[in-house]
């Protein structure tokens, strides 16, 4: 395996507090040294003016295969991941069939190996067939290497079942990843309940539909001493609940999406179905609270909730169109444009929230999420000044349901190495 020397990049690795211009040497697929000069034997990658960081880790990717291949396949989804700078993604089990048996896990793992794009970690179902009635075979799934359990797409209505899940999953030291939403309170809503929904005459999803279930999940985790990971937190109250829980020592981590950090329900005046997702876009106060929560460590990770839907599904009446937007290929550029360039967040913070922290939540092995010596070389090289316009043809995902279509953004992954091999090189 050829050695690689990434030269003169600004190397940022939050795991070891590193932020300096240096060379990174990769031998046999692993990071082996910093600051070394070329020996002539390595393949050299010039990273001058670029940022070199541990590859991004997404905790929340819907790969849609098996069952919804018209929207995304494991091949296209992992390709999209590379295009966005991700080296590891964790796929959500709400496929058809749902990922609730060892055979389902193996299928995904095999398809990911065939695709040969990025690492894919599998999240298994909490309940059999994602029906919320009885526990899936968590132990069997754990033996196949799932990194957590989730019935994402909907919440578990039965609190007793969720309690058992928290207790049972502890045997395998795996997190219960909760999509927190009370279906009755959400009341078939389309967008955030509030002034904008009132003006537009749209059925609202109140923030309380999320918050009561966030509170419930926290209380169950506290009671059972289980490990909770809260998915796509979108409300100010949710951030407050998590902050308080962490103060009390509850074993909880949380993620927030790029869209909940940057967009508000005001945009829905366009009636664009690419602004419809669950949880919905909230108010500016919620966005501000999510950004603050991210910066003070209440929210640990940025996760995309990449949710591809084919155009024919999204081009429907907004109350019938499915929830969700793609995110893998725009997250870096959106966060740079809206947060870093506006002085609200640093590159170190972004990389911590997109690489190091998510790797810790699912306990990735072999030093993923870091550039420490000896770690597997999962690396992203970012051009922080590259301007590009989001168009359908820029997407490698099977779908282009993005609210940023037509927008000019700044910053993009230009090179991605997975296990020491170059898997993306943008010219």
């Amino acid at each position, binding site marked *: 395996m050829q050695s690689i020397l990434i030269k003169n990049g600004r190397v940022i690795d939050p795991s070891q507090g590193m932020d300096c211009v240096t060379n990174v040497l990769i031998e046999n697929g692993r990071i082996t040294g910093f600051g070394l000069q070329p020996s002539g034997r390595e393949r050299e990658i010039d990273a001058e003016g670029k940022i070199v960081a541990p590859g991004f880790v997404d905790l929340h990717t819907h790969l849609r295969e098996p069952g919804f291949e018209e929207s995304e396949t494991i091949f296209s989804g992992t390709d999209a991941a590379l295009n966005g700078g991700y080296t590891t993604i964790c796929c959500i089990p709400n496929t058809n069939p749902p990922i609730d048996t060892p055979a389902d896990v193996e299928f995904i793992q095999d398809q990911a190996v065939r695709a040969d794009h990025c690492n894919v970690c599998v999240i298994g179902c909490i309940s059999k067939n994602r029906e919320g009635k009885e526990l899936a075979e968590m132990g069997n799934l754990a033996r196949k290497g799932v990194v957590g359990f989730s019935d994402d797409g909907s919440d578990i209505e039965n609190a007793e079942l969720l309690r058992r899940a928290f207790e049972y999953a502890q045997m395998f030291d795996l997190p219960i990843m909760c999509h927190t939403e009370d279906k009755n309170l959400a009341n078939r809503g389309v967008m955030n309940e509030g*002034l904008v929904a009132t*003006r*537009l*005459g*749209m059925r609202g999803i109140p923030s309380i539909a999320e918050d009561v279930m966030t509170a419930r999940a926290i209380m169950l985790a506290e009671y059972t001493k289980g490990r909770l990971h809260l998915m796509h937190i979108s409300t100010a109250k949710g951030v407050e609940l998590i902050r308080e829980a962490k103060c009390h020592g509850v074993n909880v981590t949380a993620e927030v999406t790029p869209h909940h950090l940057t967009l508000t329900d005001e945009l829905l005046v366009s009636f664009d179905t690419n602004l419809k997702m669950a949880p919905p876009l909230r108010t500016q106060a919620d966005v501000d609270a999510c950004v603050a929560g991210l910066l003070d460590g209440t929210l640990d990770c940025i996760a995309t909730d990449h949710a591809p839907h084919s155009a024919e599904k999204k081009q*429907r009446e*907004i*109350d019938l169109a499915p929830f969700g937007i793609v995110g893998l290929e725009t997250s870096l550029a959106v966060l740079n444009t809206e947060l870093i360039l506006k002085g609200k967040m640093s590159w170190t913070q972004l990389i911590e929230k997109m690489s190091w922290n998510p790797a810790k939540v699912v306990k990735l092995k072999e030093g993923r999420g870091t550039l420490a010596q000896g770690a597997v070389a999962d690396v992203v090289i970012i051009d922080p000044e590259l301007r590009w316009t989001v168009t359908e043809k820029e997407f490698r995902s099977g779908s282009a349901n993005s609210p940023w279509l037509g927008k000019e953004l700044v910053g993009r992954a230009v090179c991605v190495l997975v296990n020491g091999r170059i898997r993306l090189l943008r010219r």
Partner: protein
Amino acid sequence: MINDLPELGEFPEGWKRKHLLGLEDLTKEELLILLDKAQVFRNAFDEGRRKFSFLSGHTSVTLFFENSTRTRTSFTLAAQRLGASCVAFAASTSSLSKGESVIDTAKNLEAMGCESMVVRHSTPGIPHLLAESVDCSIINAGDGAHEHPTQGLLDILTMRQRLGNLEGKTVCVVGDIAHSRVARSNAWGLKKLGAHVIVCGPSTLVSPYWEEMGVEYSHNLDALLPRVDVLNMLRIQFERQFTSPFPSIREYSLLFGMNGERLRRAKPELLVIAPGPINRGVELTPEVADGPQSAILDQVSNGLAVRMAVLWLTDGARKRLAQAK
């Protein structure tokens, strides 16, 4: 017999819209143009001049994805009396049941040649979506709980006829505010004309967010009655609710129904209107609905005049835009 209508005058310079999607977007000037032209059509109607040729050669399609009888009939008559031909498209008899999208349906109809589409749909924003997808004029005949601009206009025209200038007048819309496009179109239009708007109904159907829209909200009809000039009594939309927002119809009627007893505690010159069809005995007792303060049938005649004005104005704007290109 085709009539003349010299009172209509030249096409107003201030009107540039080929679509009518809602009253929220309109300026006060545009609103006044619509109301003034509608009044011209109404006067002519009262004098027996009911048939014109302004839209001869124009084909209008009523594209209704929700049931309606009077709005559709009113638009059809309005188009015909302007000399247009009018075709009805009903969703239940169309290929929509085969999964054809709304946009595809509209494009198909346009390919057959039509100058305007009058659209009603249960989803907010559908007329806006169509306005971006087709070349003909789109007239919103009700999109979900969002807007119903011609209903708002005919309500306002009726108020203007009875009360004159609406500046400083208090108009209270009563009922299922949450699910009402009529409440929204009334609020936007009336606020532009300087009226004070109150929305009133059960607290489960009237949210405090209305205040942020510049509208007073209340859950106590009796407390409001003495200071109200117009009551617009909405129909309870049983079909739009998934959970029951109040315990019973009897209780609703008790708290928010307009009856003779309440009428006697209101201003003597109180005007009562209702967008219809009303549930008699629920929102209004027959005593009120058929009494001298009710203008319900006037509203129906005004509806026709408003729709004629809307079709005439949007058609004129569309032709001018086409010429400019």
